[in-house]
């Protein structure tokens, strides 16, 4: 099969989840109780919504990740042709990794890799 079956896998997954959820809504028993539909909080009535402003600790990690992930995308084409090109590709990647390593070192020293 060719890549058109990519759409096939999408459709199967939709059918699987959708079918099971529809079946469960039809087959499962139902009972109504206002306390049941509260968000869970150790059994006591929940205190306020969860949608509040709070410090997202992984914000800096997400930004550094973005840089490194884009770098991975650049590295994959290099990885494929590394064996053919040889020494020039190797020198180039040393320079690339040197710059990248400096970036990581900078983030490290600045304390961006610390969970606060």
């Amino acid at each position, binding site marked *: 099969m060719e890549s058109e079956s990519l759409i096939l896998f999408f459709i*199967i997954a939709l059918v699987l989840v959708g079918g099971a959820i529809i079946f469960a809504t039809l087959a499962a028993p139902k009972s109504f109780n206002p306390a049941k539909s509260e968000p869970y909080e150790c059994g006591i009535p929940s205190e306020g919504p969860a949608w509040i402003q709070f410090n997202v600790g992984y914000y800096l990690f997400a930004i550094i990740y973005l840089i490194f992930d884009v770098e991975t995308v650049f590295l994959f084409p290099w990885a494929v042709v590394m064996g053919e090109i040889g020494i020039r590709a190797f020198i180039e990647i040393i320079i690339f*990794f040197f710059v990248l390593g400096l970036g990581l070192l900078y983030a490290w020293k600045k304390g961006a890799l610390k969970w606060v």
Partner: protein
Amino acid sequence: MSSKIYDFSTLTGSIDAALNSWMSPGLAVLSEMVIIGLLFLTFYALLGLFLVYLERKVCAVIQNRVGPNRVGKWGLLQTIADLIKLLMKELIPIRKADHLLFLIAPFIVIIASFMAMGAVPFAKGLHVLDFNIGVFYVMAVSSLGVVGILIAGWSSNSKYSLIGAMRSGAQIVSYELSVGLSLMAIVVFSGTMSLSGIIESQADGWWIFKGHIPAFVAFIVFLIASTAEINRGPFDLAEAESELTAGFHTEYSGIKFAFFFLAEYINMFIVAALGATVFLGGWMPFHIGNWEGFNQVMDYIPSIVWFFAKTFFIIYVIMWFKWTFPRLRIDQLLTLEWKFLLPISMVNILLIAFLVMMHWHF
């Protein structure tokens, strides 16, 4: 070389020819899609059930218990009974939740795992999506699952879910780098990103043996990072039962909860299959260089058996991690990735590039 290995493409090819002779090409493609779809659906469901059973048995062995043994022979039907129970459970609507996103989240998680599983090469010629960027495709698609997890945590409007989802976001996002770099190590060796190409390049020995120590280091990094990537083992902070109830799927009930559970196990299979394919040769039998006699003896074992043996070996190791290591703290987790695994894998890539440049690998 390796002519004895049964090629499943002769089987699929003859089915294709037969279908094309019976009906018009468009209809033949459609019916092939239906056949593949049904096969995958069955395989996906059975695999999920079996992995849950296996996990409970492995856990029982490690904790010196018996494990499920009441329903069916050796408790084999236990997970089927569980599935029926989950199907018959009420789907509790959360009053303050974002209902649309709450409904969409399990779809995204399952779709990501399904599309990644389509690219797994099960045996010689048994490979549905054989892209020339196979490794990259599996990485890209399987990381879509984190979107589903974040949506699930956010839309539940529960504090536990939100904290679990945030942790999971930081964790999956971080460890993806190490997974990518360790897989890239083998891409440098084999010079191709297609999964079938990588398997073919291991006909004279698996990369973990051919690639000297750097390939082994890459394999270890891959194991650690992929365990974190699928939210398991000592890295299951996203659903740390003892502190967050169930993490991002606290508010999900019945079959919707079952889908998150299922996706977790299927993702475990996918990373194990990917690791087995890239590092341990996939369906390629154990070959040693030019030992023709030895290689031919090994070829008598069917390729599908090799694939599943290696995959389940990695799955067993991942389960072993979970039941023997204590859970990490979030800052330890991120330190491990950013200050240890990432620098190690970067240096490792340079070493491998050097090896390839000098043609020192076999």
